[in-house]
């Protein structure tokens, strides 16, 4: 039993994180050509609207929530007078709203990807798998928010912080209900898979666009100053 916990809640997360980091590096070096959002808006834009917007807003806020709730210890919140109960209640209500948004968006995207002929033809199995995996992770997450009734602040949260700070303690996960265990395990798996999917677009968020000048110039890649130019142009070809 100990070994199983060790494997699932220590070894597996680190495995996924390693694949996550090395996978992104490998992909960036070897396959930059396919590193993009793979937008399908050009083929179908009406049903994409609600799907893409609900999903993205929902998932990004969910990330913010997870980061704030799980990575920052409750003791810091206590300093600011936010008690564990208040924290849970905020997490619960915001979690319900953004979770539902993300899930609904994800299902809309999934439906579109399955039933719109064009989107289906242009997409790959990988695209479908990514959405399916997201649906599972988000689905179990939403289930937990609505029906889980379990305080994660003193179990799951410290366990995750333990992993992040390289002092893992799988025993913390022992009392956690099964649905939470499935959620976190699926999430680690998705993290490990993400470098090999279109999810790489997350790391290309164009922040520099906000600071750069509008028009960009680039020189041709060859060196030299131009002073060594050919002396006379060759006419392009012969014609009567």
């Amino acid at each position, binding site marked *: 039993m100990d070994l199983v916990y060790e494997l699932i809640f220590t070894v597996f997360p680190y495995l996924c994180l390693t694949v996550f980091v090395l996978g992104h590096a490998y992909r960036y070096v070897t396959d*930059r*050509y*396919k*590193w*993009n*959002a*793979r*937008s*399908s*808006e*050009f*083929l*179908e*834009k009406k049903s*994409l*609207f609600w799907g*893409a*917007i609900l999903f*993205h807003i929902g998932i990004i806020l969910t990330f913010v929530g997870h980061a704030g709730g799980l990575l920052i210890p409750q003791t810091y919140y206590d300093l600011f007078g936010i008690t564990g109960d208040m924290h849970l209640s905020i997490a619960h209500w915001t979690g319900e709203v953004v979770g539902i948004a993300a899930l609904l968006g994800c299902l809309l995207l999934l439906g579109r990807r399955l039933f719109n*002929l*064009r989107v289906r*033809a*242009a997409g790959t199995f990988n695209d479908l798998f990514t959405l399916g995996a997201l649906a599972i992770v988000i689905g179990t997450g939403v289930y937990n928010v609505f029906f889980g009734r379990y305080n994660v602040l003193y179990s799951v949260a410290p366990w995750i912080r333990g992993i992040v700070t390289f002092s893992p303690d799988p025993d913390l996960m022992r009392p956690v209900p099964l649905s939470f265990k499935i959620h976190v395990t699926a999430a680690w798996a998705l993290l490990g898979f993400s470098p090999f999917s279109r999810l790489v*677009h997350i790391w*290309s968020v*164009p922040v*520099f*666009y*906000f600071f*750069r000048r*509008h*028009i*960009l*110039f*680039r*020189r*041709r890649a*060859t*060196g*030299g*100053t*131009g*002073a*060594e*130019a*050919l*002396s*006379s*142009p*060759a*006419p*392009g*070809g*012969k*014609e009567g």
Partner: protein
Amino acid sequence: MKIKAQTAMVLNLDKCIGCHTCSIPCKNVWTTRKGAEYMWFNNVECKPGIGYPKKWENQDVHRGGWQLKNGRLELKAGGRLHKGINIFHNPDLPTIDEYYEPWNYDYESLITSPERKHQPSIRPRSQLTGKHMDLSWGPNWEDDLAGASETAVGDINFRDLDHALYLQFRNVFMFYLPRLCEHCLNPACVASCPSGAMYKREEDGIVLVDQERCRGWRYCVSGCPYKKVYFNWKTGRAEKCIFCYPRVEAGMTTLCAHTCVGRIRYVGLFLYDADRIAEVASAKEDTDVYPAHLDILLDPEDPEVTDRAAAQGMAPNVIDAALRSPVYKLAKAWKLALPLHPEFRTLPMVWYIPPLSPIRDYAEPGQESDLIDRLRIPVRFLANLLTAGDEAPVRLALHRLSAVRHYMRSVRVEGQADEALLQAVGLDRDTTEAVYRLLALARFDERYVLPTTRPDASQLHQFQGRCGFNPDAA
């Protein structure tokens, strides 16, 4: 003053016969890949018409290009913040239906068909879904005014004109408009790209997409007012006309220009003052943009310009090519060529000589004093297309074209040079003959004047006889 060189093209619409020969080699060489079937880096439209993609000129629909707001130049689709917010779903992105759904035919079924009473026929099959489809729009759907009575109503160049009048059979007019990327001086596509994947080349101004940095945010597609950046639906990246840069670097002209049977195309360099781009693009009125644009195109025969360019490091063969530039003559020296929709404020660099057209029903002498007003193609339409509605430059170009014809006719047919019309349009005899020569007779190397790019600095000849071996090994 920062002097840069810009590769540019002039197309003489007076001579375009609408044969689409230019589009074919371009298609064959650059856009036969999966996801690119629908792309035509070069396409030939028939005017009046709404074009490819539908209504590309109408920025109330597409929101491409720049606009002046409170005296400040900004992207019409909205600034950086707007783009950040709408990145998950770009409201201004056209869909493939506005271009057309690409299709093909099962040609093989013609050969493999069993013997039947009737000839076998083949049905179009979508290249997107692989399913049979009914065609309702395609490339050149409006060719030679096909369906123009319905679609051409939406041509924005009818502004201030009664389109119903001009779409009646007895008044109808048409001309061809071959289109490619304008390789603008102030490209809205480059400014719209969140990833910084699009850029202008420092040396020749060609606008390119860095395929390894394109992340598929697709704002360049909607940002270009000429709709000349295309979205590859298979790879999820932007692709566009590359002005055949691998050829241009070798001093060869573009495929579209090389193959043009009407010999309507001219390719060459402009020298321009890069410090004044923002000022020109922010000209107060839409009609001020063209004169301001003309103003920053520098005279290569002015030694002050060439000296300064050389001092700033411009290669001698580039300066030499600029000196012999056919496009400079057509656009600036003779003012025959005009930009396409300067009001989009991207400062486009593919310019057009407006077409003359047959004279309409005979009018009583003196009734319409200006011959140009009796041409079938209304001047206003051309002005809306080429000069943001300012008729004067279009009139000047058309008057000059007709004066050159008149003069040459007097020389060649009547045997007596009649210079009467020349003076009124500001041409002298030598210039007129030069115009005639460039428009009618010019050979390949007069129409296409491009410098070769400086050779690769790696001195390839040093590797001769050493490649594949390692002479330094013990």
